[in-house]
């Protein structure tokens, strides 16, 4: 029996995104943004959009596959997939699901995408609850625990306290994203640098570890990648970027109700990271560039620890700005500005950036990057991650 793996079996042939807007400022409807990003990814890949035969997304994306297929005049829809879970937990999983469809022969040419014009709907940071709180919320909302930041904050408090990690480590994570955004004209925070002083003076969202700049913004836009069989990618315009490893899910009862996960102070990657590295036949020491989804900087810390990039005992020394910067830091991270400063496109912008780094076309290029890891949205369940590489890594 042949080895069951996606390693080297599929490639990302095209990437696309819309203009990224501040929250509520997109002149275009959310569905139109999705169409723009998808067409851009096809154009980048040199593939006729009518050849697309599948769509994969996550986070309850409102731009549904049947409508996309009809709007784009797709000849034949062969794969449509929505990954369970909110936010960006499914960003890598959407690419993985597209990859599984392509590798299994269910489809040939699948778009993984995210479209988001939250301003046309409701804000994440404000309650959408009615007069009665249902399900888990019944045990949370009456105590003023409502927003995403509040859902995760007690994980961060406990982990930072247990390991004696200082808030300055989180500041370095935020500053790396803002630093890279200053040389990325696509970035929403282009021209708006962040200093230590500005970070330290920013208001508390939640004590003890969430200042304003530890929290993601909301944005409008869309991003998409086109996944094809590895063989096909060789004949397309760009240098192929191969999927080396990917995994999704969560460890034992990570979604247990009312904050009862046995391993609570976690981003929920322990098993996912292990499975991803096993498929990739690589480890964190092999990675040239890291894209780590920031919903909150504390979540990035947990992701980095659980993927083996950071030893919590050394987090205070290692998580300093110079180590996180392209081109020559020890661990260049969020090189396009990430969710915090390029665009909160629920991490899809990080997949695009990973591809750019491997093609050698990034705004903050790490010379000779061969392997890039994308760590998806942390602290939800399911979470997901992936590793991409150049042909040399196969």
């Amino acid at each position: 029996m042949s080895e069951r793996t996606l390693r080297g079996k599929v490639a990302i042939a095209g990437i696309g995104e819309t203009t990224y807007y501040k929250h509520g400022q997109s002149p275009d409807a959310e569905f139109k943004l999705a169409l723009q990003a998808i067409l851009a990814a096809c154009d980048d890949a040199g593939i006729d959009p009518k050849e697309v035969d599948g769509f994969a997304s996550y986070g309850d994306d409102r731009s549904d596959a049947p409508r996309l297929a009809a709007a784009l005049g797709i000849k034949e829809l062969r794969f449509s997939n929505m990954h369970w879970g909110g936010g960006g937990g499914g960003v890598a999983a959407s690419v993985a699901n597209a990859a599984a469809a392509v590798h299994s022969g269910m489809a040939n040419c699948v778009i993984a995408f995210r479209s988001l014009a939250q301003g046309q709907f409701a804000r994440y940071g404000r309650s959408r609850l009615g007069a009665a709180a249902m399900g888990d919320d019944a045990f949370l909302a009456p105590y003023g625990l409502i927003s995403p930041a509040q859902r995760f904050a007690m994980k961060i408090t406990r982990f930072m306290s247990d390991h004696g990690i200082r808030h300055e480590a989180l500041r370095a994570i935020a500053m790396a994203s803002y630093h890279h955004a200053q040389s990325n004209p696509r970035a929403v925070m282009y021209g708006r640098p962040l200093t230590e002083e500005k970070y330290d003076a920013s208001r508390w969202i939640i004590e003890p570890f969430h200042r304003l700049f530890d929290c993601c913004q909301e944005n409008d836009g869309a991003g998409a990648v086109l996944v094809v069989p590895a063989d096909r990618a060789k004949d397309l315009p760009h240098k192929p970027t191969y999927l080396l490893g990917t995994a999704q899910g969560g460890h034992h009862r990570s979604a247990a109700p009312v904050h009862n996960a046995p391993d609570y102070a976690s981003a929920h990657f322990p098993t996912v990271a292990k499975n991803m590295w096993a498929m990739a036949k690589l480890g964190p020491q092999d990675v040239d560039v890291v894209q780590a989804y920031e919903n909150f900087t504390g979540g990035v810390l947990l992701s980095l620890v659980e993927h083996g990039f950071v030893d919590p005992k050394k987090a205070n020394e290692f998580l300093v700005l110079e180590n996180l910067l392209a081109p020559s830091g020890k661990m260049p991270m969020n090189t396009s500005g990430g969710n915090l400063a390029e665009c909160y496109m629920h991490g899809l912008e990080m997949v695009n950036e990973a591809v750019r780094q491997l093609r050698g076309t990034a705004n903050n290029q790490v010379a000779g990057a061969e392997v890039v890891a994308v760590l998806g949205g942390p602290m939800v369940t399911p979470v997901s991650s992936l590793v991409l590489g150049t042909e040399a890594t196969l």
Partner: protein
Amino acid sequence: MSTTTKRALPDGLPAPDQPPLTKPYWDGTRAGKLVIQRCKGCGAHQWGPEWVCHRCHSFDLGWEEVAPTGRIWSWQRPHHPVHQALTGFGPYTIVLVELPHAGNVRMVGNLICEPTAPVEIGAEVEAVFEPHDEADPPYTLVQWRLKD
């Protein structure tokens, strides 16, 4: 049993839905008791409520009164108002309380304290029942304060 008429948070936050799965808990708090799920098959404590025991898959889940005491496992102090009822209020303190005598299940509530009071992981706390008699249906929240 300790109750309070001074509420931890302003009125107007969502009230808890009380469907059949969780009704015994809310009935308990109305009577000033902390009751949680305990499997009649294997004895595992379980929180929050679910239809099946996560350990032995028995559907025969009972409810057991447990001592209303615990220790702070983690905490947070929100400043940013996330609900209109909280505008102009705060900061306030949310704690995750572990019940070591009930299988280490954890509960979320407010810590009754000054908004600048230091909070210590591991500190011993006791439940304070906060009735909302005027609500329809009425309900009682479980808040926490440091043990003397």
